[in-house]
């Protein structure tokens, strides 16, 4: 029986052209209409396509249209790039002051003598000025610092920042913090940094610059270790050495308090300064609180390179001091709200990301903070909670998704979002796009 009358079913030519995307829109539509209703022709196309050898061509990119989320990230990336370039073009001295002032309230070493701020601040401020002391304790420090500058500049130029950042020390030095453990953390951090410094004097500057490049793409990494430990190491040179002992034990809260005082001297609004605070990153779960080593500045990229570029002998240390007094910001979800703490969990500040958003879990690493909630809702902050972006896993909000049960950050670019349905959505570009991983049988 001739079931396939010629006019009725599309010819092989047409079906093949359809399967190979070679039809114009109108004809494609008419073939689709037929296929939707004709099981046999679906079968034919299916068989022919299945018989296509591996590596045969013709898969269009998955994206079929404009995605707002992509655009948003592109905008962020572009603005970071612009700011970076601008900072490099504008004279370093001009850029340095405002950036330091805004990016880290602690360090106002432009006018160190002006105020008598908290001891930490004073020391921090003095650090740059007393670069000579660095030389005392490490005679060749200046030379090395300059070497580091060059390396940093190279890293900037080649864009190897991300690579350097990631290879430098692995992702997210995550410490568990209990009340009694902070000191240990600090001590560890000091050790780490000292080791690092001795092993490679160029590292800090390199890390600093790579940190900036990595901003927006990579998050924490070696840099974070460096930054978080940097403050603790700060007093090391010269006569301040004793400062380590002083500084290490009084952990986060004290430092925070000092900083706040300093801020109040500088800025009338403590709120602003809180927002502007450039440090701390946390990883928190509902019950336990994990803290990842903190990355430094949120302020747009250029600060460290700029300070490096000043070529002052203390430039390197300037980077260090600038990030001093960082208390990792902790995150948690409590009774349906996101909370963060900047004082190791003493005071928790509730944050609202969006109306009707019911957070379920929060994970932070470096500057990245991921918050997952009911019905696949997902928010990402890349600046430690200052600004948030709503992320849509599927590219639109139409499809109902399961609740976010888990967020796994393998590195700042590679993140898995697990839903209650068992779906595993993975991004390998830091949240710009997601794909649904095939289920394991």
């Amino acid at each position, binding site marked *: 029986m001739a079931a396939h009358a010629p006019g009725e079913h599309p010819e*092989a030519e047409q079906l093949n052209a359809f399967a*190979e995307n070679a039809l114009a829109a109108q004809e494609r539509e008419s073939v689709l209409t*037929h*296929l939707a209703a*004709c099981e046999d022709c679906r079968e*034919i196309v*299916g*068989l022919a396509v299945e018989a296509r050898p591996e590596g045969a061509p013709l898969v269009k990119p998955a994206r079929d249209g404009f995605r707002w989320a992509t655009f948003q990230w592109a905008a962020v990336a572009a603005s970071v790039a612009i700011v970076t370039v601008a900072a490099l073009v504008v004279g370093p001295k001009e850029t340095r002051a405002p950036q330091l002032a805004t990016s880290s309230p602690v360090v106002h070493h432009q006018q160190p003598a002006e105020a008598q701020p908290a001891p930490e601040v004073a020391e921090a401020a003095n650090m740059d000025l007393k670069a000579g002391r660095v030389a005392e304790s490490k005679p060749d420090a200046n030379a090395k610092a300059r070497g580091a500058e060059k390396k940093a500049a190279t890293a900037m130029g080649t864009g190897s920042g991300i690579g350097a950042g990631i290879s430098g020390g692995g992702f997210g030095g995550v410490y568990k913090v209990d009340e009694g453990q902070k000191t240990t953390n600090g001590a560890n951090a000091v050790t780490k940094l000292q080791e690092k410094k001795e092993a490679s004097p160029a590292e800090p500057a390199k890390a600093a610059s790579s940190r900036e490049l990595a901003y927006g793409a990579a998050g924490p990494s070696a840099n974070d270790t460096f930054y978080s430990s940097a403050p603790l190491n700060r007093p090391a040179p010269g006569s301040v050495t004793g400062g380590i002992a002083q500084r290490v034990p009084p952990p986060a809260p004290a430092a925070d308090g000092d900083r706040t005082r300093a801020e109040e001297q500088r800025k009338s609004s403590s709120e602003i300064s809180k927002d502007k605070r450039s440090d701390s990153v946390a990883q928190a779960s509902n019950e336990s609180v994990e803290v990842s080593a903190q990355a430094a500045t949120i302020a747009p990229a250029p600060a460290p390179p700029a300070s490096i570029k000043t070529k002052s002998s203390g430039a390197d240390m300037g980077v260090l001091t600038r990030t001093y007094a960082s208390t990792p910001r902790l995150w948690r979800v409590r009774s349906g709200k996101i909370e963060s703490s900047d004082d190791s969990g003493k005071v928790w500040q509730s944050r609202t990301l969006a109306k009707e958003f019911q957070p379920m879990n929060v994970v932070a690493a470096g500057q990245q903070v991921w918050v997952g909630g009911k019905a696949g809702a997902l928010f990402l902050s890349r600046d430690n909670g200052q600004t948030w972006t709503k992320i849509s896993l599927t*590219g639109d909000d139409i499809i109902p998704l399961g609740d976010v049960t888990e967020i796994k950050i393998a590195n700042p670019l590679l993140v898995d979002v697990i839903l209650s349905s068992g779906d595993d959505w993975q991004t390998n570009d830091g949240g710009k796009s997601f794909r649904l991983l095939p289920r394991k049988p």
Partner: protein
Amino acid sequence: MPPKPIYALDVKPLAPVIAELYLLSEAQKVGITKEAFAGILGVVAGKYLTTNASEKEASTFLRGLRVQELVLARACSAGNEIAWEIFLTKFREPLYNAGRAIAKNDATGRELADSLYADLYGMKSDDDGRRSKLDYYMGRGSLEGWLRTVLAQEFVNRYRTQKRLVSLEEEEDAGVQFAAAPAAAATTSADARLEAATDEALRALSSEDKFILASYFLDDRTLAEIARMLNVHESTISRKLERAAKALRGEIMAGLQQKGMSRRQAEEALEADVRDIAVDVRASLGRERNLQESGMKSFQAGKGQE
């Protein structure tokens, strides 16, 4: 039947394009002259271009053709030995591989491919006694893909014939199963409304959505398979499928409520086990198709109830 050209390719203004494509196609190698080449293009363009297609459209269309393979197919059809040599070197192996892949069986696959070869060499035709199936290749997709599709077509034709025979046997052997059909036909009024609402909702879907729904739910294809058929990424299909299913449900719900059901009743109607509902989606989808063969429809409807 050779297609009747609707669009007449104006060779003169398109001469540069045709000349360029002639070189590209290496038609000379297989003994096709420039004039013959223009004739081949004319037939293809006549078949697919609308009568009022502009010169630019024609030029774009011609450039999109796989002229090298088109020329090879025509040369083979004309019995050019060099062309056949090239054809066999290039496509013999893929053809047998495709046969095996489609039939999922070595012997059947080989048989399938062999029978296609016979058709390619020449089928019986009314007018001049012999006509190669290759004449039906028009160069819009790849020749290899076309060969695979022809194989698949042939396979489905045979398979369906066989299946029809089998289903008749089944009907005799397992008459009890078929006896259940009248029971299902005694539909409640809710079912009738559900059927109408489903029909309407299905009609409202885009053809792509219908295609995806049918492939996924009726043909049991995987997301990956559907994605390959549509040349998109798997996640796109996943997304579209979810969206279409949701839209369909919403439409049916609205339709049911419009037909006088309360929301709760509508929900209940939808929550009933699909297998208990006498709505034949396969038939609903097929209904839109204007089938000349009415037996075909009942066949499909029958399968839907299996």
